[in-house]
């Protein structure tokens, strides 16, 4: 069974941290809504770019993915280049399922990222909370039985300090994040130069793998019986991140075809994403990629439980070049600089 690693870690919190072992719980460490908040915060950090990668299982992978994204790849190849602007803007809705002890909730938030064409600039990340609701009627009943505590969503103690409801948090991030984390440091304007043939693209991306592997030597050693990311899991992650950038339609199509052929990737066929939109999907481990066959664009990245039920989703709402940034609140610089972080 796969679980989100931050939730697993939260659940593994040792009783030994409390003053009296197994005794009275610390005030502030509530199993109720406070617990939701603490885990949800981790989800937002992780999901800003991607649904948290799961602790993968050893599920049998028999279904081949070959051909699953063919129609979508064709649509992508027909894509007309978009007029360029100074920022590449990507809008997503994020919904994450969280356990609050006796009941589960869904936390929904919206993020917009503005990646600067100038790699010396900073990326602007805008987050806003939408709502937090009990997951099912049964969860709603359990929540009411618990006294209907206020559900804070991504805001610890409802202090609006991460994704404020009704307001935005604006934070500066590295310009090429998270691509740079996977070892790809091409400026946005040069991503259109990436190959449009799957084999050539694979070769181009795999050329980055040795350097990434070298960087992993600085990582702490994996514990006994564990392993570092493999070439294939790294390539899957990097490719999914690339799909959210202004690559050409040809490169997008090549990415779909390359991913289909990646060892361990399964075809899920035609599905609807967590937002109810129809598309074609492939999966590696518990992570699903849903693509529109009509437009060739990515619809969603989703996490599924072993049962197949989707528990977390990043729903892509649109991506385009824009000329300028949204107007930032008073007291904020006009353009993000290092350490910019303001709410308004």
């Amino acid at each position: 069974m796969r679980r989100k690693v931050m939730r697993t870690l939260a659940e593994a919190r040792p009783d030994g941290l409390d003053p009296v072992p197994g005794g009275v719980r610390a005030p502030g460490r509530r199993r109720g809504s406070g617990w939701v908040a603490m885990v949800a915060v981790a989800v937002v950090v992780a999901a800003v770019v991607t649904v948290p990668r799961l602790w993968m299982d050893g599920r049998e992978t028999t279904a081949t993915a070959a051909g699953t994204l063919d129609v979508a790849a064709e649509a992508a190849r027909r894509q007309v280049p978009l007029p360029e602007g100074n920022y590449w803007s990507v809008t997503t809705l994020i919904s994450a399922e969280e356990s609050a002890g006796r009941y589960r909730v869904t936390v929904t938030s919206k993020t917009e990222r503005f990646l600067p064409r100038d790699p010396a600039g900073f990326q602007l990340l805008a987050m806003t909370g939408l709502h937090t609701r009990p997951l099912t009627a049964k969860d709603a009943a359990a929540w009411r039985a618990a006294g209907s505590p206020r559900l804070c969503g991504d805001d610890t103690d409802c202090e609006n300090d991460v994704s404020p409801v009704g307001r935005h948090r604006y934070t500066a991030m590295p310009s090429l994040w998270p691509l740079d984390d996977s070892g790809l440091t091409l400026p946005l304007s040069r991503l259109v130069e990436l190959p449009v043939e799957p084999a050539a693209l694979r070769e181009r991306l795999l050329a980055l793998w040795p350097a990434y592997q070298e960087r992993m030597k600085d990582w702490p050693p994996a514990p006994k019986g564990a392993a570092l990311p493999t070439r294939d899991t790294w390539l899957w992650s990097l490719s999914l991140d690339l799909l959210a950038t202004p690559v050409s339609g040809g490169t997008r199509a090549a990415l779909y075809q390359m991913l289909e052929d990646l060892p361990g990737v399964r075809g899920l066929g035609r599905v609807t994403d967590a937002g109810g939109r129809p598309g074609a999907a492939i999966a590696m481990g518990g992570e699903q990629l849903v693509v529109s066959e009509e437009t060739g664009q990515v619809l969603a990245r989703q996490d599924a439980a072993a049962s197949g039920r989707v528990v977390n989703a990043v729903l892509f709402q649109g991506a385009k070049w824009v000329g300028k940034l949204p107007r930032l609140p008073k007291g904020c610089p006009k353009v993000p600089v290092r350490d910019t972080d303001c709410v308004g």
Partner: protein
Amino acid sequence: MNDVERAQVLDEKEFAALYDATHPRVFAYAVSRCGRQLAEEVVSETFAVAWRRRADIPRRAVLPWLLGVARNVTRELYRDEVRQAALENALRGWAKEVTGDVAEEVARRSAVLSALVALSDEDKELLTLVSWHGLSSAQAARVVGCSVSAFFVRLHRARRRLEAALLVPKEEEACGGR
């Protein structure tokens, strides 16, 4: 810190109330940095410092401020090797002590604690500030003294390394078939 955040200096009664409200959380933080045996001293020294500096306590961010003090106190009291060794011992102990009704979940929680041992001290701190101490990224960034965006990036990387430490080799077989 600005004037809005800083209210009037706490009197003894108010400080006692603050101690009662926050002591368990400061203790939990200290244990997560150096194990139970060394934690008591960190906690008492932290509140001693807090009393002396009570004029500086930001009313709206008491906990991050206190944990920041505890963080510095821990560094002053113990050499890094001593503290890290004590913490590793504690983590190994907790990994063995995990209990529960479902064997699979017990194994999973135990595995995540064992994986945490292998991570760097900085990764351990960032991950536990969020998942064990219930701090938001903004609060945790304040404790470790970095910007929120820097914290996002560091947490993102730490989480990835924790995931990597949990990837079991049979996953490779299932994925790669080779």
